[in-house]
């Protein structure tokens, strides 16, 4: 029993890390532009496809030892860059012209972008590559090779701790720390926070709000790309709808933590990951969405602004 609990705790933690990484992208964009970047989950998905393509191109499934890790690091970096670029491109092409439009417009556009990206994912999966199983069935999940050794690091203990667990948690923590430092210690981070709180006043300080927004999309997309590789390494599949489901969970995590709040997104992600792991174990995986969204609704009834969020007042 205790081992099961510990195992679920570990699973929840790793899941939660992935949620948190995606949730950060939602929350940062929301913090500055106050709109739900619906397509964010699909940037995550496309990055997964990009990473899988890279794995195929590099022949990583056969690599060993140092070469494996070096190339894996390269995949991580490239996928993050890919996510960042895609996200930035979407902002420039779709959202930026709508900056002054009523709130509904960017939200609906984001839903549109999400559908376009999903279709791109579908077509990507239909490319005649070996890693996509020849591309005959674009909608089917593509298996992402288990690159890391699956030995239990704890030897014969009942609790299974694999290298990928350690890697997921370690790398995620490292990235989150870097983000935290970026936001709290650098000039750019300060400009981001200032813009989120009062964009007009930020402009009066000489902050180029457009550039801050661009940086936010870059960082958010990078985190999504990073999360995609981590997710693929962990779950070993990518499929064109994975962005929708995980994106929705991650957004829920951001809301639970208090949208616009960076530590809140991490907290919400971890919480949701844990709840998901335990509900899968004790209630059944098929009820996962019901449990997670049920929690969201109950939380919003009792604490409409999330766990760490502050209540905003409308100016009259």
């Amino acid at each position, binding site marked *: 029993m205790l081992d099961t609990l510990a195992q679920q705790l570990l699973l929840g933690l790793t899941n939660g890390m992935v949620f948190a990484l995606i949730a950060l992208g939602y929350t940062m964009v929301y913090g500055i532009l106050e709109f739900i970047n619906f397509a964010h989950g699909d940037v995550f998905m496309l990055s997964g496809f990009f990473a899988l393509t890279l794995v195929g191109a590099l022949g990583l499934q056969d690599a060993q030892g140092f070469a494996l890790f070096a190339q894996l690091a390269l995949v991580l970096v490239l996928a993050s860059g890919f996510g960042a670029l895609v996200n930035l491109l979407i902002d420039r092409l779709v959202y930026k012209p709508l900056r002054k439009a009523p709130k509904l417009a*960017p939200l*609906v556009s984001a839903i549109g972008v999400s559908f376009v990206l999903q279709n791109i994912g579908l077509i990507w999966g239909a490319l005649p590559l070996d890693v996509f199983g020849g591309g*005959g069935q674009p909608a089917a999940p593509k298996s992402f090779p288990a690159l890391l050794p699956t030995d239990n690091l704890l030897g014969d203990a009942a609790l299974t701790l694999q290298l990928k667990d350690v890697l997921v948690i370690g790398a995620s923590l490292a990235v989150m720390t870097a983000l935290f430092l970026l936001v709290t210690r650098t000039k750019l981070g300060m400009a981001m926070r200032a813009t989120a709180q009062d964009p007009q006043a930020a402009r009066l300080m000489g902050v180029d709000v457009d550039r801050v927004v661009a940086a936010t999309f870059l960082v958010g997309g990078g985190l999504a790309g990073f999360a995609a590789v981590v997710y693929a390494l962990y779950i070993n599949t990518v499929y064109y709808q994975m962005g929708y489901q995980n994106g929705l969970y991650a957004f829920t995590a951001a809301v639970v933590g208090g949208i616009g709040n960076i530590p809140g997104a991490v907290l919400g992600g971890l919480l949701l990951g844990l709840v998901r792991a335990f509900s899968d174990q004790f209630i059944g995986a098929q009820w996962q969405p019901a449990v997670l*969204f049920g929690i969201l609704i109950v939380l919003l009834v009792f604490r409409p602004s999330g766990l760490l969020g502050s209540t905003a007042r409308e100016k009259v």
Partner: protein
Amino acid sequence: MTTESLLLIFAVLSPIFPVFDLAGEAAGLQLHLDQRLVTIFVYGILVVALNVQVGYAGLLQLGIAAFFGIGAMATGVMTVDKYPFHFGFWGALVCAPLVAAVAGVVIGAPTLRLRGDYLAIVTIGFGEVLRTVLINLENITDGPRGLNPVPEVWTPSWLRDWIGAGDAGEANLLVMYYTALLVLVAAVVVLKVIENTRIGRAFVALREDELAAACMGLDPGRIKLMAFAGGAALSGLAGCLYATNLTTTADPTNYDFNNAVMVLCCLIIGGLGSLRGALLGAALLIGFDNVLSPLLDRAIQVAVGDASHPLARFSSWRWFLFGFALIFMMRLRPEGLFPARRVAAELHDEPEEA
């Protein structure tokens, strides 16, 4: 809208089916246009239902498909042989909207005070929960197989003989076609009337400025709940017709988020807040999806010869179309193709900078 214009709608739409039917037969195509036209009517009802919530009251509701599904499922449970209820089609047509409206109130009540985009996410969540429930309560819903057979629209045999000229299959299709058309027209008439009454004004006032409306004594919660319940009831009605048309409640994936977005697409392309726009949006998009794209698929099949690859099918690209439709509409013509007077003005105002 006058009685005359109503009669006009009837006059225009009534013969479409027989005409298509004849044309299809003459061309030797097995397109099942009859069923597809009913599908357009069903989605027409869904789009005007969403229009109540998004267009009139400004509540971004992305879980419309869930209420659609509830209507269909309630119809299934109430009518199939294996359950003891046996309400028949007409009984289900009364009860399905009630069940959906109750669901609308239950989901609406705790979330009404949420900001607009939170509401969007909660309604998506609700849709996901419902999909999960429909799939997992297999003893009730028969899971992915769906409940069937859902009985056809009951009509007395003399009426069938008269309509179908003795052909039972033909009569069934015609009865379904006219029933759906009648329900759609009734829904449009009632909504058109409501637009200019106290309730319709309250919806628009709420969308324009919730705080000012509240300060005038309008209860935003109550009005939102009305919009929620009304839209849900109409969606339930659509669900009932949908299941009857298919004779099954079908796979729960028919009621998922993609479906909700398709309905939203229709509404936005047609024009938020405009009944005319909603109907034309539904006709355009669902017509494309249901009528034109199978035709094109067939054409590709014929042209290419072997088109077994999934990407050679039009349906693999439909989300491109819907996605781009949303993006371009928001960019170029946010008020839709057939806008309502009020909304058109609203979406073109740029919020001023302080």
